[in-house]
Every structure is written in structure tokens, then in C-alpha cells.
């Protein structure tokens, strides 16, 4: 397992390797400078293909969350090109952002569930937004809840669930519309190791059916156990990109 200080494996020269033709997620020489002169990312380049799962790790302030915010179009890059499913996000007009976001499933550390709606209603939201008919919605929500093991909780309010269960509701909401890409920002931050592994197991299942999964996490133990590709950031720079088979 590499550390930010140990730049022992960089599979391609930084800045020269842009997203490939099959890449679902692409960062090409991406930099992000916030107001107040804070440089969050500097010339970051890597890509994630369909059916690939990758961790983005690094210390606090390394730029992990900024990376995901660029993908979710919460922020725009100062330089470079971010691509999602072949679409350059730099040139997306504000009115097109919702359509692009529907290609993404997002899982947050704090779940961001609507506490006054039932588990079913929370998971149903992306399908309502996509204009899916009520009959299809019911079928697909139940399938997603079954996938995360919460079918019997569909009528409960999120507050009645444990933290781990709430996180699984968040995952069901992220995957219910069959997104091309699943991104997660510290999804296991509030969970015990066993629950964290269960959640990661779910992500690995989505990867297995062709979804590109990008998880920001600083939990090195968990990353080691998952044996997936690891992208390491340090002070906004990509310092290592370790293929799954080399993670030890």
C-alpha cells in the first residue's frame, strides 16, 4: 500500500495520460483553485473505466472531496478537462447539469436522506425525477431495497434506522436509477469496520455489473482489504495510482 510520501508506483507519466476512449470518468490535467488562493488540485490526470472500482485517498485537505465535487458539477475546474461518460463537463451549460447528474449515483458520508419521508420515498426520488411511472417505480425501489437488505424497512422513517442502515438507504437511492457512475464521499466514515466492509461489498457488486465506482476514503485498512485500484492525492497532486493487483 503506497503512502503519499512513497511515490513508488505511477503507472503513467502524470499529465500525459488522459482519459481513454472507454473511460467513463476522466480527469485530464485538472486543477482547481478556490477563492482565497487555496489550490485544491494541481494537474490531476486519471481515468476510470466502466466496471472499474477505484479508491481516492489521501490526508485531510488532499483534494478528495474536490475531485468528487468536480464530477458532480458542484464545482468547476480552474484548468483541465473533466469528462463523464464521454461528455466534457467544462462545457456543460447550467441547464444541462441535472441531466448529467442523473448519470451519477452519489453516496454521502452523512447520507443526506429526507427525514420526513419514508425509506421508500427517499429511494424513489431519483426515479420520480427521471419521470418513471409509479408502477415501475415501486418495482425498482423494492429491487434496490432488496439489494441493500432493507426491503422490510420501506415504510420506516430514516430516523428509525441505525447509521449503517441509513447509509444503505443512501446507497439504494444512488443505484436505483442505474447510474453509469457511482461516487461516494467517505461513505463508511461513521460506520464500524464490519459495517464498512458490508457497504464496500455492495459497491463491489455494482462494479461487477459494469458500474464505474469511485470512492473517496481515508480508511487505509479498509482500502487494503478491498484490494481495488487506489489513486493517492497529496496536497492536491496525484502522487500514486496503484492498480488493484498491486494493492497489498
Amino acid at each position: 500500500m503506497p503512502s503519499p510520501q512513497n511515490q513508488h508506483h505511477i503507472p503513467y507519466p502524470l499529465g500525459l495520460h488522459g482519459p481513454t476512449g472507454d473511460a467513463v470518468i476522466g480527469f485530464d490535467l485538472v486543477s482547481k483553485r478556490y477563492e482565497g488562493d487555496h489550490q485544491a488540485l494541481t494537474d490531476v490526470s486519471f481515468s476510470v473505466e466502466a466496471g472499474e472500482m477505484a479508491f481516492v485517498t489521501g490526508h485531510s485537505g488532499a483534494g478528495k472531496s474536490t475531485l468528487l465535487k468536480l464530477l458532480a458539477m458542484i464545482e468547476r475546474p480552474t484548468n483541465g478537462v473533466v469528462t463523464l461518460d464521454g461528455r466534457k463537463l467544462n462545457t456543460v451549460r447550467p441547464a444541462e447539469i441535472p441531466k448529467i447528474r442523473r448519470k451519477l449515483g452519489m453516496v454521502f458520508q452523512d447520507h443526506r436522506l429526507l427525514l420526513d419521508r419514508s425509506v421508500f420515498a427517499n429511494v424513489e426520488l431519483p426515479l420520480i425525477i427521471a419521470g418513471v411511472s409509479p408502477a415501475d417505480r415501486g418495482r425498482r425501489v423494492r429491487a434496490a431495497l432488496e439489494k441493500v437488505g432493507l426491503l422490510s424497512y420501506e415504510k420506516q422513517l430514516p430516523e428509525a434506522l441505525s447509521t449503517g442502515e441509513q447509509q444503505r438507504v443512501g446507497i439504494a437511492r444512488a443505484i436505483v436509477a442505474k447510474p453509469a457512475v457511482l461516487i461516494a464521499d467517505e461513505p463508511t466514515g461513521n460506520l464500524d469496520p464490519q459495517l464498512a466492509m458490508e457497504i464496500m461489498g455492495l459497491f463491489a457488486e455494482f462494479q461487477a455489473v459494469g458500474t464505474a465506482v469511485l470512492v473517496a476514503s481515508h480508511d487505509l485498512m479498509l482500502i487494503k482489504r478491498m484490494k481495488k485500484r487506489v489513486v493517492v492525492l497529496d496536497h492536491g497532486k496525484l502522487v500514486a495510482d496503484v492498480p488493484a493487483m498491486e494493492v497489498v
Partner: protein
Amino acid sequence: MNAVREPRRAPEPEKTRRSEPRKVGAWREHHAWSMSISLRRLGARPLGTLLTVAVMGVALALPLTFYLLLGNVQRMGDALGRNQSISAFMKPGQNAGMAETAASALRGRPEVADIVVRTPKDGLDELAEVQGFSGALQSLDANPLPYVLSVQPKPGLSAEDIGRLVDSMKATPGVDMVQDTGAWRQRLDALLGVGTRAVSLLALLLGIAALLVVGNTIRVDIQSRSAEIGVLLLIGASRPFVRRPYLYAGIWLGFLAGVLAVALAVVLELALAGPVGRLAAAYDGSVSFGGLPAWLLLSVPFASAVLGWLGARLVSARQIRRAAAA
């Protein structure tokens, strides 16, 4: 020989480019969801909803009530004004033939409904009926009263028409003096004009107040749901999608307030019907109570719904932008 591995493809996401029937279906689903979620939200805070509807309803009932009162004053004026005639006093020494000639000349005018020629004897008899006059009249050597033409104008004449008729009566040969006993009606019409304008302005002001009440309710609702709005935008909702339930909430609030305003107006109408009925009886039944027209009662809830929608529209875009930025 190595087997060629089929590259794995990402699962097909929800289509972003939709066919027309699917677009219509999605549009219908969005509106159905927005309608139901807005109703559920209003139902989830019944006291707040009730208060907003009550404030709006009372505000809208006020101009309706004034409109009802004005309409009835107008009807009363019309009923009483029907019997008001204009009197032309002939010059002293004019005989019956001259009075009849003057009456014939005036009968040809379009403003005139009827003319009655009252002789000096008719006048003297009327005076004699007035208590205390009979003794004084017996002491007269001759009848000093002139012929009088009692002209009944056609109903619905304007003040200008009446003025023209009075002028023509004054200009009729043999006429000494004209007395317009219907002048009070002109003053009443002028007062009703002022009242109508005041009610219109009041309705406008109270309409704006109702709009602001809805706007403020929606603004507070959006503020309290800023976290939810943030989540919806992150998972792919467009701003119009996020905004739509709030617009529907404005429509429901406006519609319910309109229904309440109509109910209040009808209650007031029923409360006024009794006293006005008794007043009508005092005028030999020539005055009757008139309620609010059905078209008005039916249109108020819908007009109020439009008002609610406008109020919600006024604040929602800006508030959602703020919530999204937060």
C-alpha cells in the same frame, strides 16, 4: 489462441434524450407528484395552512362584501329613482291649451317616458289635503297655482341626459321654472361611483396583500427545506422540478382561500337578506335584496388560485437559488 474479452460496458443510465410520448409521460408524472407532495406538505402543518387560508380568505371576502353592499344600494337607488319626476311650472295666466301644447312638444323627446298635466285645481286639492292648509286656502279669492307638467324620464338615463331634458324643458315656450326632484339621484350615482372605485382599489390592495401572504408562506417553507432542495438538486432534479411543488402549494392555498372568501360572503349575504327584506316591505316591495352573481362566486376561487400561484412564483425562484447556493 487467446479469447477476445468483450469490454465491459457501463449500465445504461436513465435516458436523458426522451421520445415525445415519454416526455409527456414524464411531464405528467412530475405534475402528479408535485400536486400530491404539495398537498401532503400543507396537510402536514394544518395550523399554518389554516392560518394562511384564513388571512387570505378574510382579505378576499372584504371586497366581495363591499361589492354586495354597493350593488344593493344601487338597486335601492334604481327602485326609488323610478318614481322621481321633473316638474315644469307654467307661467301665470297660461291656460290648459297652452299647457297641453308644451306637454306635446316635450313628449317627442327621447328622454321622456310620460308626462302628466296637472291643473291648478289639482294642485289646490293636494294642498287642501295637507293638514292646516284647508282654512288658509278658503280665504283665497282666486287659485294662484299655475299648470304643472310632471315629466317622468325614461329609466336608466345618465346625468347628462337628464340635464339635457331639464334644459329643453326650460326652453319650452310658456314654462316659467323647472324643478328637478331627481337631483338627489345624481348625487347618489356620484357617491356610488366613488364607492365602486374605492371597492376596486380595496380589492386590488387586498389582492396584493393575499399574494404577499402566500409569497411569505412559501418563502418560509422553502427556507425550512433548503437541505432537501440541496439533495434534490444533487441527485439530478432540475430547478423547475424543485420549484413545482411550491407553485402547487400556492395554487392550493389560493383556491382554499377563495372558497373560504365565497363562504364568508354567502354567510354575510344571508345575514343581510332579512333586514333588507324588511326595508323592501317599507317601500311597498319596490326594493328587493340582490345577492352576489353566480359567475362571481364561481370565479373567485379560481382567481384566488391564480393569485396564490403568482405569490409562490414571485418568491420561489429566488429562494430556491439561495437554498441551492447554501
